[in-house]
């Protein structure tokens, strides 16, 4: 009896066990086979996190490696409104840290949403203060923010990048494909507390940063140019100003200053009009600076020689029923003096002797009416009409710098061509592109566009342009101890309301190079609408002189003028 009971209990136990195993087996089959795909996805969602990462934007440095633009990871703050108990209290705590009004924060935190940005790209210190508070329902993510540590310096060349890190202006825009960091999605493994354990798969790597750019710009030269230009624009109460410093032998831009300036760190505080790089976007009538190119063309074509005598018509000459005036009543003068005294009549006569086809050919050869192809966005081509569209006075007008629109960059490139012996170089601002490890990926060499005039002609023109400084209209451009060559320009601005040239609005300019016998710097200064004494020789030439003197000293260029002194020191 006892044995049968015991056997019965065993069967029951066995049955229960079998049932238990059956249930487990059924559940296993359900989970592992029938619901396998669906559950596997759910598990992955809990154990893995896919994040989208972007490498830091590349750094921009000057020719000596000084940082001009750089990315730093900074905190951005978000809220999770639908988990908050007291949005007002939270808003009051956050307001002094984020520098956002309490009302505005509260409004955002009361929204029926699971995510809302409260403030983006804050200063690192603000992030640290927020960390110390450790608030529920408030999160911090790190985002790359572009810093321009030199403030407004070189802003028009550097440009700036937008909130999402894309280059919007200047070098930032032009070299976007190099500067932008690599975008990459990564799968991270999470533990039970949703902490990251390790990237799934050992081969995962972080996204690489963007490439770095080395500019041809020298921060010190840029600073000198900007300071002197700002000073001149302010003293002349002018509308704006532009200055470019080039290495005439290579076309490398050493400085490009535009006034008024803006700070790319707070770009939205300035009107878009301030962002424009006037040095390459704005065309102006150059006035007498064009006579340097006209002289080069006339000498190259053997129309004149420096000592060819030209009659100055005592200051008045009628061309196509209009009268051309000179500011000085000249009689017979040499062609060199025509340029040195900036005679409109002499220039017009020489231009007419050159003829419209040859004049037009040289305008093109010097690069007017076409982009210089500098590696910056927004460059204008200026305005040079074809001879078939010229009027009866056009040859005379163009010879003295009217009826033609040029950009400051075109003008300084043309002058640099005379300076370097007759070769037009392509101006450029980026000299090297480096990867994140500092290896050079691409080196941008100087590029010759074409030979415009012979070396002999360039030497003759240089001698004439030296006379502009020693005996002509550009005496204020002189630099003690150096031979300077250059040309002044004072152009009346065209008034679209009256359809005539304004008697009160001018563009004063000076362009030239130094030292004249072995040029290291080619520069242009353009001052738009100066008040008072608006002559190029009075407003722009002194800026050339001051910048030239300081930059030559900074570069250690020995003087070639009368103050060269041989010295020897006794060892102490």
């Amino acid at each position, binding site marked *: 009896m006892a044995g049968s009971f015991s056997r019965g209990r065993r069967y029951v136990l066995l049955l229960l066990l079998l049932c238990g195993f059956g249930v487990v087996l059924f559940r296993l089959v359900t989970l592992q086979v029938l619901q396998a795909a669906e559950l596997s996805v759910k598990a992955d969602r809990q154990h893995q996190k896919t994040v989208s990462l972007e490498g830091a934007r590349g750094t921009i440095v000057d020719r000596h490696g000084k940082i001009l633009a750089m990315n730093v990871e900074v905190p951005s703050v978000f809220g999770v409104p639908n988990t908050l108990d007291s949005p007002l209290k939270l808003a009051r705590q956050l307001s002094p840290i984020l520098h956002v009004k309490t009302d505005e924060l509260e409004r955002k935190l009361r929204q029926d949403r699971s995510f809302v940005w409260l403030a983006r790209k804050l200063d690192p210190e603000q992030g640290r203060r927020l960390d110390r508070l450790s608030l529920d329902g408030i999160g911090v993510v790190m985002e790359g923010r572009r*810093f321009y540590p030199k403030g407004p310096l070189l802003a028009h060349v550097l440009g700036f990048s937008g909130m999402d890190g894309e280059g919007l202006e200047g070098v930032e825009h032009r070299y976007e494909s190099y500067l932008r960091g690599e975008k990459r999605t990564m799968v991270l493994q999470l533990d039970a507390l949703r902490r990251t354990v390790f990237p799934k798969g050992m081969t995962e790597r972080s996204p690489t940063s963007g490439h770095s750019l080395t500019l041809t710009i020298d921060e010190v030269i840029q600073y000198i140019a900007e300071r002197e230009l700002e000073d001149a624009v302010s003293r002349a109460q002018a509308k704006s100003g532009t200055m470019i410093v080039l290495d005439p032998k290579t076309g490398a831009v050493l400085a490009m200053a535009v006034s008024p300036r803006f700070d790319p760190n707070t770009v939205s505080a300035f009107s878009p009009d301030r962002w424009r790089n006037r040095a390459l976007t704005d065309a102006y009538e150059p006035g007498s600076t064009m006579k340097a190119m006209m002289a080069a063309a006339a000498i190259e074509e053997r129309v004149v020689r420096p000592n060819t005598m030209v009659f100055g018509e005592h200051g008045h000459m009628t061309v196509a029923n209009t009268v051309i005036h000179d500011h000085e009543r000249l009689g017979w003068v040499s062609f060199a003096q025509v340029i040195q005294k900036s005679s409109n009549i002499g220039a017009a006569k020489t231009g007419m002797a050159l003829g419209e086809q040859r004049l037009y050919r040289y305008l093109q050869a010097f690069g007017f009416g076409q982009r210089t192809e500098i590696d910056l966005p927004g460059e204008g081509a200026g305005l040079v009409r074809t001879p078939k569209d010229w009027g009866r006075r056009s040859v005379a007008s163009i010879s003295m710098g009217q009826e033609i629109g040029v950009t400051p960059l075109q003008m300084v490139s043309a002058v640099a061509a005379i300076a370097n012996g007759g070769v037009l170089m392509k101006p450029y601002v980026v000299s090297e592109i480096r990867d994140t490890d500092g290896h050079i990926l691409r080196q941008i060499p100087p590029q010759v566009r074409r030979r415009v005039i012979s070396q002999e002609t360039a030497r003759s023109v240089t001698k004439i342009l030296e006379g502009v400084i020693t005996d002509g209209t550009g005496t204020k451009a002189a630099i003690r101890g150096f031979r300077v060559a250059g040309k002044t320009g004072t152009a009346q601005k065209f008034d679209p309301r009256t359809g005539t040239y304004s008697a009160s609005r001018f563009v004063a300019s000076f362009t030239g190079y130094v030292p004249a016998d072995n040029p290291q710097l080619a520069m242009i200064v353009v001052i738009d609408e100066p008040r008072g004494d608006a002559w190029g020789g009075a407003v722009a030439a002194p800026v050339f002189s001051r910048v030239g003197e300081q930059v030559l000293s900074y570069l250690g260029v020995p003087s070639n003028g009368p103050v060269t002194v041989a*010295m*020897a020191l006794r060892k102490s």
Partner: protein
Amino acid sequence: MKTVAVFVGLCLVFVFVWERVDVVRVGYQIERLKRDKTVLERQRDELRVKVSALSASDRIAKLATEKLGMSLPQQGQIIVVQSRPSTVRPSSDVVPVELKVAKNYLPSGRF
């Protein structure tokens, strides 16, 4: 023999489990080091930007003029002087030098 086989089997299981645990431990360690690296890189970048801002010519010039009472040399005061190559070999205690001087720093005021 059986005991040895069981022991070896247990050892293998132990090694397997230990390896798995260690992988997780090292994984956490790597993650911690990566976080540390990120924080340090961030600090380095912040400092580089700070150094660059502090060494800006604009700021240096302002400090020099406003705090140290320095002033920019006026026109004609900077003269870069270059030694001329001499045909006479200099004696051992005389060396040619290239000097950069501001004119107003010379005792006589002129060369």
